[in-house]
């Protein structure tokens, strides 16, 4: 058994392998993970909207030992990750970290939000630092405005409104 605690280190090895096969392959994998995650999220997100999303990430905050702040607003959910255990574990590792490890989060969350008609703005800030900012908007124009303030904006498979990952 690879312990749950070491899943991110396994994930990192998978990313490194897939990166050698090309970006499309990496995107196909994130889509597969996204479909897997739909089983844990879609019903609540569809039924309870932003509040359902807040509840999901609050559960993740506890189970994954995250230092994060969640703010639920009428028009958006805002998540500020102050200390990401996933990247921290990948960096505290005898194997080398994949340089774009952080990209996987938007890679699975983005397609779910697209299916639900919400607008994800995912700012990784810096791939070497275990912190990021995620915002989920009801309104597309507000999301566009927030994208302009991002330091390192993430892309995901199927994202079609013009913003490409740096």
């Amino acid at each position, binding site marked *: *058994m690879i*312990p749950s605690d070491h899943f991110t280190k*396994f*994930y990192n090895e998978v990313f490194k392998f897939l990166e050698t096969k090309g970006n499309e392959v990496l995107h196909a*994998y994130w889509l597969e993970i996204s479909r897997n995650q739909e*089983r844990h999220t879609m019903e609540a997100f569809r039924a309870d909207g932003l509040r359902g999303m807040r509840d999901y990430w609050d559960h993740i905050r506890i189970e994954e030992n995250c230092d994060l702040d969640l703010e639920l607003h009428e028009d958006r959910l805002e998540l500020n990750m102050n200390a990401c255990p996933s990247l921290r574990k990948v960096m*505290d590792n005898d194997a080398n970290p994949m340089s774009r490890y952080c990209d996987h989060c938007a890679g699975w969350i983005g397609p779910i939000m697209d299916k639900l008609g919400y607008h994800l703005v995912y700012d990784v800030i810096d791939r070497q630092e275990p912190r990021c900012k995620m915002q989920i908007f009801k309104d597309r124009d507000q999301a566009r405005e927030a994208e302009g303030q991002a330091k390192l904006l993430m892309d995901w498979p199927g994202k079609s409104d013009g913003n490409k990952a740096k």
Partner: protein
Amino acid sequence: MIKPDDKPLRYNDGGNVHMDFHGATNTTIDFIIKNFGIEAMDDIFARVGRDVYADIRGHLMAGNATELVKHWRHFFDREGADYAIDVREDEVVLTVNHCPAYHHVKKIAPKVSDHFCDQTTKTNEAMAEGGPFAIATEITGPGSCRQIIRKRP
């Protein structure tokens, strides 16, 4: 083969446990095998055994199985496994009666991958490869196994 010490493990995780990660491992195994074949999956597990668990491997290479036994106890305890470890003079036997990973996936996923337990078999093999010990993994049933560390002849 066992030299007890009170040093912390290289990866000494604490806090809460997110068991759903096992579901993502299950999805990943099927994705990799479907698209790249079983050899690719085995190779990734081998990298986990060699590179991620370089510290355990280093101890095994030096003839010391203590770190691996400590690793088993720490993480099987954290995940609430039903298991026993029998340390004998010439071998260490881990008997897993109820694997938390397998049974959690069975609960949350449509199907447990036919290759789910390869994560154990292949990672064990890679940790021990080229060293004084062999680690045999015997799958004894759905969600149960025996893992045996013994000196190579």
